[in-house]
């Protein structure tokens, strides 16, 4: 039982680390805003 709990805890830990790395360090894909050089958007 304790072994299963350990696995769950480690999975949660890995999930949390992956989420934070993705959130702050992985560059999101640039969206096409439809702007051109004429506007300030």
């Amino acid at each position, binding site marked *: *039982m*304790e072994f299963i*709990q*350990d696995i*769950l*805890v480690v999975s*949660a*830990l890995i*999930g*949390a*680390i992956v*989420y*934070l790395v993705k*959130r*702050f360090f992985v560059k999101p894909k640039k969206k096409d805003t*439809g702007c*051109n*050089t*004429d*506007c*300030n*958007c």
Partner: protein
Amino acid sequence: MPEHKAIKVALVGNPNTGKTSLFNQLTGLNQKVGNYPGITVDKKVGKAHLSEHIYASVIDLPGTYSINPTTIDENIVLQTLLNTAHGDFPDVIVVVADIENIKRNLLLYSQIKDLQIPTILAINMADQLDKKGVEIDLELLKHELKSEVLLISARKNIGIDKLKEVILDYDKLDTSTLAKISERIDKEYFDELQSNFPNISLYKTWLYITQLDEFPDLSEKEQDLIQQYKKEADKLKKYQHKETIFRYQQINEILKKTYKVDRTKARDLRSRLDSILTHKIFGYVIFAVILMMIFQSIFDWASIPMDLIDAFFADLSTTVRQLLPAGPVTDLISEGIIPGIGGIVIFIPQIAILFLFVSVLEETGYMSRVVFLMDKIMRRFGMSGKSVVPLISGTACAIPAVMAARNISGWKERLITILVVPFVTCSARLPVYAIIIALIIPQQRVLGVFSLQGLTLLGLYLLGFLMAVLSGYILHKTLKVQGKSFFLIEMPDYKLPSLKNVFYTVIEKTKAFVFGAGKIILAISIILWFLASNGPDSFDKAEADFAAQAENATIDESDYNAAFASYKLEHSYIGVMGKAIEPAIQPLGYDWKIGIALISSFAAREVFVGTLATIYSVGNDDEEHSTIKKRMSEEVNETTGEKLFNIPVGMSLMIFYAFAMQCVSTLAIVKRETNSWTWPLVQLIGMGIIAYVASFITYTLLS
């Protein structure tokens, strides 16, 4: 005698210009309301008697801001005016404008005039010219706009007879174009267009290409040609922007010569309110009083729901611990996740109240007056009036505020604004301030009215704003970057706030705050709990070591358990990390536990409270989990034995958070906006040094 001639008249105009009032005035009871075929948009047509034998068939077209349609209603206007075979195609168009928003109204007029259909400009609400301090040189305006311009009041039936006379003589109206778009955009391109469609007006051809998909009055050959032009989508978009800019430039030039507003002469309610709310002394006093009321309410109204939420999460932790079998998962949930999430949910009432006030101020039109008022200050500090918009949005979050700086055309002013925006107190700082203020500032009233806690919070907001302005001034004097811009703002009318809009804004902003920060906090809570519940070799031996050390001490079981929990935390991974940075933060009055919160809240400031809640929860061996506030208030400085969160430490911490750049997301967005790592690094290091020095001075002076 039977009426035998009908003139088709189309009423066109921006929404809320009094177009329908004019329609009612012209047609009286001779009107009927139907639907446009296939859509549920009202079609209003009526009859107006112009002379004994001639009447006008008047159609009230849906309100539109421009001839480039974005809605079904607006599309109807375009379809009606472009298609000569359309049953409602007019002989003459009356463009209705109002005296206050004439610039915006003239964009539509300018586009319609270029369709080369006889057009009359009717400026409505002319009875309020004096009240609003507006002067119009009518003859010059007629000359500049190459058409008949009339001052009317649809509500008071002023100028309507004259309008009927002009409609009667519509065939005498000048139908030449107003804007020479070909010369200002791309002469070669438009000359070619004109030669390919010699029988259609140039602007109409241009609209065929950019706006329509069906062209009932064009030959097959012409339709094919239009399709060819349509393929150059990028070019078309660019030219459309150029067209709008050019039209506004031309309108500005015309209005400079023909239209003047002297607000000092204005006597209407809006002007009277403006003269008070934007007054050079009262304006600031009123703004300060409103701010004071907001911050007072944040504490007064939110305290009960916050206490309830805090108690709920404490009970939840206890219940989870009792219900689930003992083990690491139960510990993770009850000591890591629940306190961490509770640390953010508790601030929902305060965040909601803040956004409630902000959206009410925006809805009423007051916020634009604040922007105008603050522009005078900003200019003295070398920033643009447009910088006020990002600075005010910065009270919600620095990220959209940095992006809002795109509206500033001068690069230097834009860069300065981007660099100083993070000083403005964002909603993420609110939880940090709120918990520390609740711990160190007594619940007292000043002058019997103002709450001391609310005033402290107001002081912190003002401090952030002053620091932003001061840094802006220093950057203005030191940065060697060229560029200047001008400030232009359209003041909306005052109105009662729409409850629906306010409700949606509050829900949307609060949701964004909770869910945006919530996921980060949940992830950090899990990692923190793991780091606080595990450790290097000494952690595994902690129980034996502590038992050996406490062997000769005479303490009761509960004190023993608390001391043991604290000993274990100190020897955990997080304890080791906290101890490592402790020498650097000790001069500011912080212990290693606060150090951990400082490190983790580098990701996002609001993580601070959740982190402390998690750390103190792990370090607390009580079976009954207490509230975050209680746990923090009971925390004792290990060196002095006094309460950790006293005035010197609390103030030092709040000053640190007021100035430090504790937000990775903002740094990322600054990098994107400036296209360089230099400026985010300048922010990070510069704000870090300011925060450290200011906190050190605060702690030293107050100790």
